[in-house]
């Protein structure tokens, strides 16, 4: 009769589990499912407050689609670099794995740089978290996403410098896989944010003066 092995923490060999998925990987996916609700709440808040700002600046006055398209592209390519890093790590090619890992971190930093410049430009144009609902919801949503990217960059750099000194082990490959899952998740959140807030939401604010005026009259 085939019986499942039950060893737990037995001398570094990864225990077989009921589901055949390692504990850490399952934890990561449950965390990502949970994080869906986290970003979902922020995006829903943004959407509930679409076109509800009482004063400008409005999205169509500040959003810069060409620049953000470039940063979106950078983040997308960092995802590709991440998957390549993992792929080479799984094939025991530590040098290439480390190269792509550093590339991911670098692309992540470029993305963050774009975001910092974007935020500073917006503030110069009069959009702050205090200014209106658009400013509040936009900065906090993209700011929390940026925070996730920043955490990811720290994680990746930490792994690139601390974990990959010696030979690759199945454990450190799995570490890399966890970081990769997190990184790709951050990327897909940005896919949603870019489409919903930048591309679809860009026209928000055209002719908003009259609309908010009307709302004020109705008492909406």
């Amino acid at each position, binding site marked *: 009769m085939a019986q499942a092995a*039950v060893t737990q923490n*037995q001398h570094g060999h990864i225990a077989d589990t009921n589901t055949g998925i390692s504990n850490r990987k399952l934890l990561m996916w*449950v965390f990502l499912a949970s994080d869906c609700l986290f970003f979902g709440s*922020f995006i829903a808040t943004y959407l509930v407050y679409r076109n509800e700002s*009482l004063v400008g600046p409005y999205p169509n006055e500040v959003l810069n689609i060409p620049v953000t398209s470039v940063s979106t592209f950078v983040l997308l390519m960092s995802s590709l670099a991440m998957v390549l890093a993992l792929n080479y790590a799984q094939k025991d090619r530590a040098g290439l794995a480390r190269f792509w890992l550093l590339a991911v971190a670098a692309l992540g930093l470029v993305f963050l740089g774009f975001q910092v410049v974007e935020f500073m430009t917006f503030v110069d144009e009069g959009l702050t*978290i*205090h200014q209106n609902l658009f400013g509040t*919801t936009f900065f906090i949503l993209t700011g929390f996403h940026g925070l996730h990217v920043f955490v990811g960059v720290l994680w990746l750099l930490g792994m690139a410098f601390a974990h990959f000194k010696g030979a690759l082990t199945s454990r450190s490959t799995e570490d890399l896989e966890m970081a990769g899952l997190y990184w790709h998740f951050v990327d897909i959140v940005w896919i949603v944010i870019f489409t919903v807030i930048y591309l679809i939401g860009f026209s928000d604010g055209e002719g908003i003066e009259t609309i908010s005026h009307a709302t004020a009259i109705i008492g909406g």
Partner: protein
Amino acid sequence: MTTIAFPTLISRPTSYTGLWSWIGTVDHKRIGTLYGVTAFLYFLVGGVEALILRAQLAQAESDLISPELFNELFTMHGTTMVFLVVMPMSAAFFNWMIPLMIGARDVAFPRLNAFSYWTFLFGSIFLNLSFFLGGAPDAGWFGYANLTGNTYSPGDGVTFWALGLTTLGVASLAAAFNFVVTILNMRAPGMGLMKMPVFVWMSLVTSILIALAMPIIAVALIQLALDRVWDTNFFNPAAGGDPVLWQHLFWLFGHPEVYILILPAMGIVSETLPVFSKKPLFGYPAVVLAGAIIGFMGWFVWSHHMFTVGLGPAANAAFAVSTMLIAVPTGVKIFNWIATTWGGKLQLNTSMLFSLGFIAMFIIGGLSGVSHASPPTDAQQQDTYYIVAHFHYVLFGGAIFGLFAGGYYWWPKMTGKKLGEALGQWHFWVMLVGFNLTFGPMHWLGLNGMPRRIATYADGMGWEMSNAIASAGSMLIAFGVLLFIINIIRTISSTQESEDDPWDARTLEWSIPSPPPAYNFARIPQVKSLDDFWYTKHPDLLHDERGEEIEVGEPVENDTHGGGSIHLPGMSYYPFITSLGVTIGVAGFMDILVEVPGTNIQFPWLSAVGIVIGLWGLMGWTFEPVSEEGGH
């Protein structure tokens, strides 16, 4: 595994006794005990708050306490009982019993488990510090916007509330992830999902609910804290902000939360009723399925808390229907419990009495709940004492009674001694009578129009008698709790040991010595059927009860390539340090920011300190080998 030398500054705890061993512990049983003791202390705190409230309301036009203090007390009573009593007390049972019931030696992530507890402890201390640092939160336990804004809540109380609950959310999330993975991945060989005890099933559903619901309240609380500290506009009507959004986010979390509170208790009575009726649980698959359906449907009923907001007839009708529908799986469970006791050889000891009390009180609370599933009725009952009566019947008569049942049932497992039976019976009956005296009259008070959250009421409203009875009942509850404490003290000081399996119980935790050794199972059990341990003990019953051939499992031989000894994860201080960092990091967002020179950015310097501490803890956590001998 490659071990990297890393300056971690502190060494691993080695002693298995004393204070430091508790701070460094990763043993799920010790962490469960810590959860239980902490939650019980908060139960006393929340209880004292309630007693002061009832003393104030005992007579009309009383001025025992100021209205401001009254607001703080009812807010903190609700917050304490929900987040600091029922949830951690359930977590205590999860910690203690899940690994034992599924035949595992620990949870999947022992150090993450310690992190959950310490974060919960620090977060709860931070929340209660508000009493001494400028006033407790006073906006009600659901903190409706825009009452919680700076305009109407100028003190620091609500900020304490928002940040404290965020910290507690981190703790609950970490614990929930851990339990989901533990239950899915660490079951003994042969224990399929439909061979798990119902308590483990209900913990799984609860953990999934926590994992998915907590992020929503975290977002709402972050938005609230940002509104208060950084003057954002999320819930600021002057800038177009919509207070109804807060209600949506809060109740989107808040309604699954209700099931997070009650499902563990439902799991507990699903264990005690079969044991003390000497019968298998009636309709095991139906009970499990009903629990899972409750967990799913619980997501689509939240707006019944908002019937009087004016969401429109379509929304109200839809949520009324879904609310009434969710009574169906709950009813399925109740009928299954009743059928379990039907024709059984009932042992009416304290645990069984609390379980039966749970069913009775929960039925009353459930029926009053269905009565305000209908929007027109709800419009009458909203914000009256009828609602207070309803949710105390489900949360006190339901969750707390269920937890007491579990306490009496598992006490011999956890300590090796039985709680006194005579005092226990007194405890139950005093509690039951006191409970009904307190909350029964509130139905009438509510239907007579007495609103919630009023510090006092005018003479001659016809509410004096009911309020006096309720206050007297609350004293009786307090007396019941006192009896419980005396019972605990007498049991601890007595020398009478209990057997390993005093109740002739059905599940795996009773197959090992009481209290269990640190490694739980000397040999990992193997499971072939539901209630495997019961049929191992009573092979003659196999055919009587099931009418079919049932196999029982033999324990598995130990994997001996560790030299035959059992390796347990080593103790660690790093979860404690990381929790400290997380709590300081979140708490540092209080109104003590410094302005960065040259800009108008308010910098939370204390958060930065917390993040540094947290990073140190995380580094140590990552680079410390899992167990002392583990690195080779």
